[in-house]
């Protein structure tokens, strides 16, 4: 155990600037949002629960919520399929290849999400790169509709969210004791058994963190959802935006926001709980 650095009594004051900033620009607006959601009329004069009862009693709203959460699940599933092989490659790689892989993982993060989203329009449109490739290879006879479809959105989000899945996953792989993998082999386990019984369970904490980040980020990915999904696919963030800026129904927009935040938090809590029970295994 490293000795704890002794600090003067007022050390908690070091966090004060951040607390002030978060209090003023995160906690206060959030409380304001919650407060606004408990008004019945768009002019915010009559307090009441009608926004929530209204939301919960309409099947359309439920469908939007469900599709938003489902979008998160699908993006998590797809990024998992891409990220694990790369994480396993990272585990097997030597220090030099590891540095290269880490660079490749980080580079996309240096470009803004907005830029990447618009790049995906070029790639996914009817005359875009993906369709020209599919056509020239003879895989499809006519251009495939990708833009403004859920498939196109998931493809784009996979690329956009992949680093968020990879970074925590790669960091557990980097800490995984190579002797544990060697021990599994020496005890007679083949690659598959070693993967399923040793590597996957030990990478679970990193995976849980990645799932959390990708899920929260893709369900709230307003720009990608509205630009690539277009107006036909409605997810919660766009729903909020429409209610607030087109219909000026601020209390309903606030209620949808609160419900989305609660839904994501609930999922996050569940994943975090799973991750925590697995985490002790790595730092045993």
């Amino acid at each position, binding site marked *: 155990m490293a000795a704890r650095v002794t600090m003067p009594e007022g050390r908690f004051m070091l966090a004060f600037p951040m607390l002030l900033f978060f209090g003023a620009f995160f906690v206060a607006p959030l409380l304001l949002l919650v407060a606004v959601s408990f008004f019945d009329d768009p002019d915010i004069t009559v307090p009441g629960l009608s926004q929530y009862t209204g939301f919960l009693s309409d099947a359309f709203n439920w469908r939007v919520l469900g599709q938003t959460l489902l979008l998160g699940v699908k993006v998590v599933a797809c990024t998992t399929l891409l990220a694990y092989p790369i994480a396993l490659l990272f585990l097997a790689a030597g220090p030099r290849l590891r540095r290269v892989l880490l660079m490749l993982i980080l580079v996309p993060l240096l470009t803004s999400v907005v830029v990447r989203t618009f790049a995906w329009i070029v790639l996914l449109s009817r005359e875009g790169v993906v369709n020209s490739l599919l056509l020239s290879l003879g895989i499809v006879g006519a251009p495939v509709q990708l833009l403004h479809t859920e498939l196109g959105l998931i493809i784009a989000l996979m690329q956009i969210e992949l680093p968020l899945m990879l970074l925590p996953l790669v960091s557990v792989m980097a800490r995984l004791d190579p002797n544990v993998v060697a021990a*599994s082999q020496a005890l007679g386990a083949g690659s598959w058994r070693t993967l399923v019984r040793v590597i996957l369970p030990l990478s679970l904490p990193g995976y849980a963190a990645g799932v959390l980040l990708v899920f929260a980020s893709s369900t709230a990915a307003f720009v990608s959802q509205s630009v690539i999904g277009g107006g036909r696919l409605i997810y919660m963030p766009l729903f909020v935006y429409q209610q607030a800026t087109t219909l000026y129904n601020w209390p309903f927009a606030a209620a949808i926001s609160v419900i989305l935040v609660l839904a994501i938090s609930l999922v996050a809590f569940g994943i975090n709980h799973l991750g925590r029970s697995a985490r002790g295994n790595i730092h045993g």
Partner: protein
Amino acid sequence: MNVLHAPRPALEGAALSGTGHAVTLTGITHRYGGFVAVRDVSLEVAGGSLVAFLGPSGCGKSTLLRAIAGFIRPQAGSIAIGGEVVDDVRPNRRGVGIVFQNYALFPHLSVAENVAYGPQAQGVPRAQVRALVEENLRLVQMADYAKRLPRELSGGQQQRVALARVLAARPRILLLDEPFGALDKNLRFDMQIEIKRLQRELNLTTILVTHDQEEAMSMAERIVVLNQGRIEQVGAPSDVYDRPATLFAGTFIGSTNLLPARIAAISGATTRVRLAAGGEVDAVAPAPLGIGGRVLLSVRPERMRLVDGPGRGRVAARLDVSMPLGATVVHEVILADGLRAKVSEPRTHDGPAHRPGDPVHVELRLESGAAIFPDGLVEDPEQENQA
């Protein structure tokens, strides 16, 4: 707490797996990039024996171990286990058990699950797996901890679980990679005895990799001294200690005094040397040397003693410091040529016969405890003549 000395259960038939498979290394060479870790090593480890690979870090001992386990494939040479060439056999099919320095227990599995891992991977039927787990946990006195997780155990307990885990997989040979490094001194000694006992009862060919010469001396039947990827000497501990084949083997194992000398005469196996500090003694030369050649005479501290008058095989010196170390006293003396030497004597009840500053004579008793090596390896004349 010392449970290791409690009466232990007798071994059951299934545990007696080792039928003494020999390990044969032929011309093993391995490089990491430009660094040659192992250079043309050939060695035969007899079935059922306990052999130590001894050397400083970077001498190639761990590379050899990893090559035997199959984790690395040497660039040249061949490895056979029990007469079967295993160069193309993957680690999970070699039947080689390995205990790592950090034990490398599966942190997410209980003690029992860790021990069951090997038999399960080998497709042993469930009832038999359970029997193997119980038997091997009992063998290492850890049956009461079956449900614990590794992080809930002490270092010594973790090591015993690692041992049970490796034995439950019924390996043909056992590799121990610096297995005692993380244990405190008393526990280390207990575990050394424990492993030696198990190894003997199971007749399991065991290779111990260590940089600790005392550990190698006390545990192994044969010691393989490695330096810079090469074998310096192979022999029984007493051979390696009393008749080091090379200057490196002489200085790495035990402590020794290196005294500059010249060859005075050669008759048969004995070589008479004249010490730079004065006096002539007979010694054993591992390699033929010419008369008049500069040599270093290696004398263990316990092969010297302090005496009062001059005489044959005696060198004039002055006592500098005496340090009582339990049963022995180590004197540091300054010889006539200015070099320092250490002399180890049993501690007597009469109190010290000599005091620091006293002129004394050092008597060399070289029946079997000295060897001479060509000089030139020690370049710096100011260099400490102690190893």
